[in-house]
């Protein structure tokens, strides 16, 4: 049983690796974005008292580069119209005939897509950013344990993200038209994940909302572990929270999927 999900994962993964030119264009775009963002923050920090800020400029710079490099790990919606079309055109019927669990099947598919496109994109950005002159350079993590914790939390964050995004796909069973609601959910979710500005720079009242939601565990948390902004002990307990979120989200997602499938009306055609 596990093998079929594994081979689907491999298939999708290799498929994603084929789009190298698109990835190159993406890298160039992300690189430019990163530079622009850093210049903006530099300008903000130039006149401010850096010590009184919750994050230092090098930490912000590192945060931005990681964000650009792992963009496909943190975007809630990753250009995948295929699953939407399955539902709206009625081809979902074929998927239902397969002797596999639909939730796991889709989960593996989405996970593989994100992993392959991140693999293509992250190393050129990270290497480039590494060699940039100060203040644009990516600073390495303070020690080896921070790096290890970063990798663990990043991967867990990815799993949490995919399980959040599953809800978007499940919602299409009810709404049939993904665009409107999806757009709003994306915008809010990505803001709360620290995509627009890093979470520590948000006002306190907003941070209080952010910490009780799962979004920040996908991006903000691993990135700050990398730069050492979140210490060793806090990182360990954070990883526990990530695990709890992951389990809850997957259980809820499976439940929602089952509910949706009992009332699914296959669109003809």
């Amino acid at each position: 049983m596990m093998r079929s999900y594994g081979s689907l994962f491999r298939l999708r993964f290799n498929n994603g690796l084929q789009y190298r030119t698109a990835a190159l264009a993406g890298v160039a775009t992300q690189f430019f974005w990163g530079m622009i963002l850093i210049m903006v923050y530099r300008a903000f920090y130039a006149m401010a008292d850096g010590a009184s800020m919750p994050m230092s400029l090098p930490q912000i710079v590192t945060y931005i580069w990681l964000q650009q490099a792992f963009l496909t790990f943190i975007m809630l919606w990753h250009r995948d119209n295929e699953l939407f079309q399955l539902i709206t055109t009625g081809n979902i019927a074929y998927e239902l005939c397969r002797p596999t669990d639909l939730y796991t099947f889709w989960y593996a598919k989405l996970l593989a897509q994100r992993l392959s496109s991140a693999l293509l994109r992250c190393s050129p950005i990270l290497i480039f950013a590494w060699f940039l002159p100060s203040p644009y350079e990516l600073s390495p993590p303070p020690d080896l344990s921070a790096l290890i914790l970063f990798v663990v939390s990043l991967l867990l964050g990815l799993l949490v993200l995919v399980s959040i995004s599953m809800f978007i796909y499940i919602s299409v069973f009810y709404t049939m038209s993904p665009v409107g609601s999806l757009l709003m959910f994306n915008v809010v979710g990505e803001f709360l994940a620290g995509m627009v500005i890093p979470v520590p720079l948000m006002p306190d009242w907003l941070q209080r909302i952010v910490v009780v939601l799962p979004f920040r565990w996908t991006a903000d948390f691993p990135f700050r572990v990398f730069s050492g902004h979140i210490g060793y002990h806090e990182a360990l307990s954070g990883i526990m929270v990530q695990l709890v979120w992951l389990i809850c989200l997957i259980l809820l997602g499976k439940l929602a999927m089952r509910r949706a499938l009992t009332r699914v009306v296959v669109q003809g055609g």
Partner: protein
Amino acid sequence: MRLFVRYLSILFRSQMQYRTSFWLLSLGQFFIPLSVFAGLYFLFERFGQLQGWTFFEVALCFAVIHMAFSLSECFARGFDSFSTLVASGDFDRLLVRPRSTVLQVLGSKFEFTRIGRLLQSVIVLVWACANLAVDWSLLKLMTLLLMVLSGVFIFTGIFILAATMCFWTIQGLEVASIFTDGGREMAQYPLHIYEGWVRRFFTFIIPFGCVNYLPLLFILDRTEGRDLLYAISPLAGILFIIPCLLIWRFGVRHYRSTGS
């Protein structure tokens, strides 16, 4: 021109057939720049100012650029999605008609849902203007209008350039989004906060500086002499469309149909 209005009304009516989807999308378009603007607001709340620029000054800049962007995305969408026209070979049909290709491609698609985005930036504009201590004169209002217009022309020019590339590559190019989305993101702050090479590139190659910096100085009374020059600087941004159109014509001459 009459033809353009005809195109407009036909496509508007066709999009209005899907009314709910239209309103939902417009609402979504309202919220996208809102989240960016919220980020900007929170940054100012924490840092107070940005190299001597206050929040409302930057908000004015933000509003102008986003207005320009949403307008050009609405009206120049045809160029943005031009690659499908080339890949499917439908561009051949445009070539045999006795009207200019630019007009026909423009008329092939409009994205009216950008009204949400436009509305958001208009609100920001009004809010910024109400809080800025600027004594508005007729010339300043004209400059403001010119800034938006100039921005529309620059974004449209970039869309045209990106579309021209399709004659050679057949597919759409993601790289173009550096200058459209990236340009928008860059230009929502005054140009002077950036490094030298960015400033030079976006003043002399793609003249965003004529939209988000030089005329802004005039409106905020920060110029030292030669006011008029600053006031009409957005006109230089409008000129940007001319080389773009020339390159487009060059591209059309080199067009080889995919034949399908």
